[in-house]
């Protein structure tokens, strides 16, 4: 296959127009000593039908979630994606467009981002949202960079109860920018970040980073953390699960300066980890420091409302080394998925959905922890995920349940050696009582 329309005859006409005899002449500026003098060593071309079969084979070598009942979350969640989302995303006016540099022919992308920004502001209670970041982890890392820039401080304080991969990305970014990262441990009983640990570290820090609910599913005492940050002049950065905001209060209400998070639960398939989208919202005070694209409303010469990329003097294509970030491409199409999804879900739907996740998770927790050999690992309240200590060990639990076509959860021992017998279980609205009961009876047989 190739997607080149010009025929040999067309090419001849073009060569004549240029005034050369062969295409090779156009490559004479590549010095001979750096030329590739052999064919690239790649597999031979395939027809479309061969390619399709090959790809079906590769996809079939994975175990699709259709065949398994999954309680795996840990940052990527199996929420239902309504058909309208893929329908809209399949419109090639959206997906074959570039960044909307020419607003007169980009109102679809621009208006949908404006709607997205509004929805993120509504969910989080913040004043300004950007058009998206790569994912929740890079959003949090860039928030930390901006906080240190704003406060002119060089220390980042992050709760150890934040997603391990978010923390890993923060460490990477911070090393690049020569910033210090201090992790504050969690309380062994509650699963929440340790208040006295924070109190010891926050003085002098540029920011405090927490996740709500945290990686263990636990609800953090965000009000106290926010107060502590404010008291010491550090910016308060919170990563949230957007769907939890159907039932949990918006971060603006407890003093967050920046709210970030992973938008995958909003209609984006798990796709082995990406592409997802990071959302990024700030207070008005920080508006001119926000990274990436921002869409604003304005009017055209005919007096009509229209939308444009705005506040571009923050951005790399204008400001080069003085930009607030290097981000250029973002995750616009995933942001569109989130916009369509949230339109479908609506004002009532997000509350209902959050309630369903909460109730089903509570039911699963109660059933599981009533079994012998399984205990709640942490006492703090949770939303759709909770941690369970398994007497028989997580390896045995996972293996045995896999035989019953159930993925029982995520073993926290991977990232926290002290939690090597703790399983993180995620329950979305898709899990039925029957499926939860099957998990429970699978676990029961092991104890």
């Amino acid at each position, binding site marked *: 296959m190739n997607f080149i329309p010009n025929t040999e005859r067309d090419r001849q006409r073009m060569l004549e127009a240029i005034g050369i005899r062969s295409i090779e002449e156009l490559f004479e500026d590549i010095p001979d000593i750096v030329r590739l003098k052999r064919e690239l060593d790649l597999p031979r071309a395939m027809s479309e039908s061969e390619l399709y079969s090959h790809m079906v084979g590769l996809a079939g070598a*994975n175990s699709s979630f259709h065949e398994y009942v999954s309680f795996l979350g840990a940052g990527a969640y199996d929420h239902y994606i309504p058909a309208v989302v893929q329908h809209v995303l399949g419109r090639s006016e959206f997906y074959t467009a570039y960044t909307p540099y020419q607003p007169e*022919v*980009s109102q679809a992308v621009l208006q949908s981002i404006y709607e997205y920004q509004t929805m993120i502001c509504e969910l989080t209670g913040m004043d300004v949202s950007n058009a998206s970041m790569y994912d929740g982890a890079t959003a949090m890392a860039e928030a930390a960079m901006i906080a240190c820039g704003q406060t002119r401080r060089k220390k980042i304080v992050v709760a150890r109860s934040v997603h391990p991969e978010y923390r890993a990305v923060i460490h990477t970014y911070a090393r690049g920018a020569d910033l210090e990262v201090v992790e504050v441990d969690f309380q062994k009983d509650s699963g929440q970040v340790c208040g006295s640990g924070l109190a010891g570290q926050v003085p002098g820090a540029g920011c405090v980073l927490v996740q709500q609910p945290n990686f263990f599913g636990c609800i953090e005492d965000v009000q106290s953390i926010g107060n502590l940050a404010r008291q010491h002049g550090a910016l308060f950065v919170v990563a949230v699960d957007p769907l939890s905001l159907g039932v949990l209060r918006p971060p603006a209400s407890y003093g967050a300066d920046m709210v970030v998070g992973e938008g995958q639960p909003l209609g984006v398939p798990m796709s082995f980890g990406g592409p997802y989208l990071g959302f990024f919202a700030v207070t008005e005070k920080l508006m001119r420091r926000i990274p990436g694209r921002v869409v604003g409303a304005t009017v055209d010469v005919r007096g009509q409302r229209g939308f444009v990329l705005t506040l571009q003097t923050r951005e790399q294509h204008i400001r080069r080394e003085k930009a607030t970030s290097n981000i*250029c491409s973002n995750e616009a199409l995933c942001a569109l998925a989130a916009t369509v999804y949230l339109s479908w879900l609506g004002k009532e739907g997000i509350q209902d959905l959050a309630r369903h996740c909460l109730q089903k998770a509570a039911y699963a927790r109660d059933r599981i922890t009533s079994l012998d050999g399984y205990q709640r690992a942490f006492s703090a309240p949770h939303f759709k995920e909770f941690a369970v200590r398994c007497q028989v060990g997580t390896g045995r639990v996972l293996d045995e349940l896999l035989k019953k076509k159930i993925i029982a959860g995520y073993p926290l021992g991977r990232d926290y050696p002290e939690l090597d017998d703790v399983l993180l279980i995620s329950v979305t609205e898709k899990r039925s009582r029957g499926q939860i009961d099957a998990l429970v009876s699978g676990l029961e047989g092991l104890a």
Partner: protein
Amino acid sequence: MKRLEPLIFELSSPGRRAYSLPALDVPEQDLGQLLPAGELRQVPAELPEVSEVDVVRHFTRLSQLNHGVDIGFYPLGSCTMKYNPKINEVVAGLPGFANLHPYVPESMAQGALQLLYEIEQYLCEIGGMARATLQPAAGAHGELTGLLIIKAYHQARGERRTKVIIPDSAHGTNPASAVMVGMETVEVKSDHRGGVDVEVLRRVMDESVSCLMLTNPNTLGLFDENIHVIADIVHQKGGLLYYDGANANAIMGYARPGDTGFDVVHFNLHKTFATPHGGGGPGSGPVGVREDLVKYLPVPLVDFDGQRYLLNYDLPDTIGRVKLYYGNFSTIIKAYAYIRAMGPDGLKKVSENAVLNANYLMRKLLEHYDLPYDRHCKHEFVVKPGRIKEKTGVRTLDISKRLLDYGVHPPTNYFPLIVEEALMIEPTETESIETLDYFVETMNQIAREAYADPERVKTAPHTTVVGRLDEATAARRPVVRWKKE
């Protein structure tokens, strides 16, 4: 007739809904028992209340207000707006890929891991690199990753290098990325042929320089003929060479960045390898490195032990993670499918035809437009409306806006910065001679209009759903969200 569409919020009507949920089939507990009262949301988020028909019509109507590659020519320079094969969209959506959780046991993800392993090999072959990470989500993210690797390399050698050299024709992301890794930028001017001024480079290159970032061919569409000399100058002082792969569509099968002296390379899968741009993303920006830099790559890498594919986290000198999970997997699937569809000869034909199309277009435009560097170009080129502007006052922006009336997306405007009134044009290989001729005829028509009736061009566009928008007010008094009145 296209019409503006209200905001989804303006279509909202209390009580209307699109969603449905499975029954809540577990006993419901009192909310106050499950969550602390203080953490409960008091005021619901003002999301729209609309029916499913409303949602579908809204976004379908909205979509009609956008230009895309599937609608028409999109010669946006340095963005490689080539056709996005439809089969790639289909295979990326296969349930075995789309429903795969990133934390399933490796044994359940062998197909996905095989794909990642193989495309890494393909990209390394195309770039002349030893190994690559697929984690970066975009070109700029690749730059950040590459610069962190270079920083780690110098630090491991006990050297503190604080500068990055960047040509004046470089993409804005280059200096912005350098600053993110704590570097100072040093700009080198271009010479009269449009390449790096080698003498200037010799003067600024010393032991405080970490690396030179170069796009080759550069943003003028010109291949730097002195690339091997440049590489020598940088390497002799212990610096490394970073390849910004934004323009790799010009050289596949002709030259490999690794063979031309580059130590670290990023590719833009959403440019060269035909994955769609999605209105601004997702992209994917894999980074390849030479052998002795492999140990600094982000974790995990995908390895093959002869029987099964596995995630390798055991890289003690790694710079760490730059992103969640393993990169933009779904985008990577599309690039993989593209490479498999094209094969080695197909990829070479891509570059051949991309370069041929660009040169044809460049020569045909010279009746009215001026060429700052008169030599064969690679996959893109820059012209400017010098004569037109002088005689009529019509500028690049006006010409671009007038193009919209003819159903063509304008070229990149006012970039690179070193050419005044630049129009940076990249036709790509997937356009036919008829499309190119239509573009030439349209550009000539606009030139004739400029001479005959400059106001017509200066007030364009006339036929788009909105006219020129007031960007200055938008930035001065930002309205960045809708609010209920």
